């Protein structure tokens, strides 16, 4: 009952938000929230730390940008193209990296994403340092004018919700059950007859595709695809968002993304203080709130419940 009520409030809040907050900010946060959720699928539920996720975000951004601006595809196809491209890149990365673990996995994904960065820097269609600018938003399904910020917001919200539901469903699916088993104890999962590499690869591709979807949507919002999207800092940022919010929780990355985007947005006047504050948050998180905001909150709730159960 409370759950349903909560859900209703959440949906209402999400629909009404653009009338109270600046829509572009909300859309940016939603894109990053989706990106972080996709990343979290890998880190939180398979236990793989990828340090190259910017490659998927960026690839999709460029493909969407190019296909909409140069090829004139409508937005829905543009996003589809970007997502598919990211999934493809994810397949290649995953195939090369999946057999490695821990720091080696992180490093090999980093190395591969640096190559994508290099390609983005050199290839003519990406516009190098300038990126692809002034990408038209076009008409969704041919008739919804996305230059209206409110219309666009609802489209972005729909994409986010779709992506988030895919992730939620994946986590709570037979497949997700196997992923959890792999994270918890891979040798045991193997001994039960699971070809764990295949599962990890599917999860990796899924994560890459959804990251790509986030990147494509971001392109649509900002009408811009740039090198920032493929830079390794972006890969680092998504780790930050996920950990800050709480890895391995479904809402954690969303909270983390909103927080980080807000910090960047509202502290933009503070120059280097932004990085100092960001660094400080990292340090405090690792030392004190290792489970992240949502993670710590859930732990607290669990503790209180247990206490109640014991006394009550």
């Amino acid at each position: 009952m409370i759950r349903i009520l909560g859900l209703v409030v959440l949906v209402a809040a999400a629909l009404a938000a653009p009338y109270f907050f600046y829509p572009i900010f909300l859309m940016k946060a939603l894109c990053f929230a989706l990106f972080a959720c996709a990343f979290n699928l890998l880190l939180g539920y398979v236990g793989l730390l990828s340090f190259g996720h910017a490659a998927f975000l960026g690839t999709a951004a460029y493909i969407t940008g190019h296909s909409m601006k140069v090829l004139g595809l409508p937005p829905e196809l543009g996003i589809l193209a970007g997502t598919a491209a990211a999934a493809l890149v994810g397949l290649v990365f995953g195939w090369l990296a999946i057999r490695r673990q821990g720091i080696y996995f992180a490093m090999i994904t980093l190395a591969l994403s640096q190559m994508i960065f290099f390609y983005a820097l050199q290839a003519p269609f990406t516009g190098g340092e300038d990126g692809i600018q002034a990408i038209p938003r076009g008409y969704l399904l041919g008739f919804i004018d996305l230059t209206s910020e409110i219309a666009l917001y609802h489209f972005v919200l729909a994409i986010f919700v779709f992506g988030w539901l895919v992730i939620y469903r994946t986590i709570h699916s037979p497949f997700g059950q196997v992923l959890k088993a792999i994270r918890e104890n891979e040798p045991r999962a193997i001994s039960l007859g699971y070809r764990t590499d295949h599962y990890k690869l599917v999860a990796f591709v899924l994560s890459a595709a959804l990251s790509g979807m986030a990147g494509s949507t971001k392109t649509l919002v900002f009408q811009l695809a740039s090198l920032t999207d493929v830079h390794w800092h972006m890969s680092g940022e998504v780790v930050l968002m996920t950990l800050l919010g709480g890895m391995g929780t479904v809402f954690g990355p969303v909270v983390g993304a909103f927080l980080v985007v807000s910090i960047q947005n509202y502290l933009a006047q503070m120059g280097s203080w932004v990085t100092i504050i960001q660094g400080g948050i990292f340090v405090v998180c690792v030392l004190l709130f290792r489970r992240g905001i949502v993670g710590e909150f859930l732990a607290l709730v669990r503790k209180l419940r247990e206490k109640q159960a014991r006394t009550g």
Partner: protein
Amino acid sequence: QVSDDVVKIGVLNDQSGTYADLAGPGSTLAAQMAVEDFGGTVLGKKIEVVFADHQNKPDVGSSIVNRWIDAEQVDVVVDVPTSSVALAVQEITNRKGKVHLNSTAATSDLTGKACSPTGVHWTYSTTALANGTGKAIVAQGGKNWFFLTADYAFGHALERDVSKVVKEAGGEVKGVVRHPFPNQDFSSFLLQAQASGAQVIGLANAGADTINSIKQAGEFGITQAGQKLAGLLVFLSDIHSLGLDTAQGLQLTTGFYWDMDDEARAWSKKFAARHNGAMPTMAQAGVYSAVAHYLKAIKEAGTDDGKKVVDKMKELPVKDFFARNASLRADGRMVHDMYLVEVKKPSESKGPWDYYKVLRTISGEEAYGPMSPACSLAKG
């Protein structure tokens, strides 16, 4: 008719990264000073200055500008170094009918294929730099060039523009090496430049890259061996961080030098007093000049509507301590005198910030050339 009863000036630049010293907080100060000197109000409405850090990222920059215009009543975006961000801002301001007064970005595309009826490019451009430094050096006999180019759009544009000038002036380009951006160690590239036997090594890069190239050229005895360095985009703050020992003899083109005459000196000293003693770069002085002219145009036009104000700016004569023999062209280009300067020897310098001697004044027409046919405004 001032929208939202306030004229809000948004200074958007790199507040903490590579370009923070040549524009950064100094540009914000310059805008502030322009507002104060104007009296703080226009058409009876308050003038406000806000600023933000775009971190040299087009996405960060465009999200700030979008917010500024949509939610925070900003009427004009000022400064905007880094070509990629500048182009993004040009696009947004054009679409939303707000003014973009660019001082620090180099790309001549702002008045070329990306020109806009509300976009103004104030201080310099790659074309001016090429015409200034390129032509002058070829004229002095530096006919063979080798380029050290930062491998990104700005570097390519600068290299392309200068090569063209050099060739037109009868020079020759012996080779190009494109280094990754950013880069720390230039010795390898310098050695290639040296091996090419070119008389002039053109540094088509900026900021820390230029500083390190110059520094290391000194270290490897390149200048001693007779090759000449041409800094294609060098700011006063770069020379300050290099020190005269290393930078002496370098020729470069600038749109402004604080010590060029009394008027410039007077303003610059006021600026420096509020800026830890640091003299203004051309970018910062340009911000003041552009903002001052913009406010004047609002007053004359009686509105803060972007298109109308810029039109008025183009009508009004441009003249202050920064802009000499100046006018604002139809394509948004502010055409004014540029200066070819040489960095003084330590023995010639009489004190801190006494760095340049002006070799030659380059007229606006010579520096900026004709309007680009790529710009739609150029025909009218």
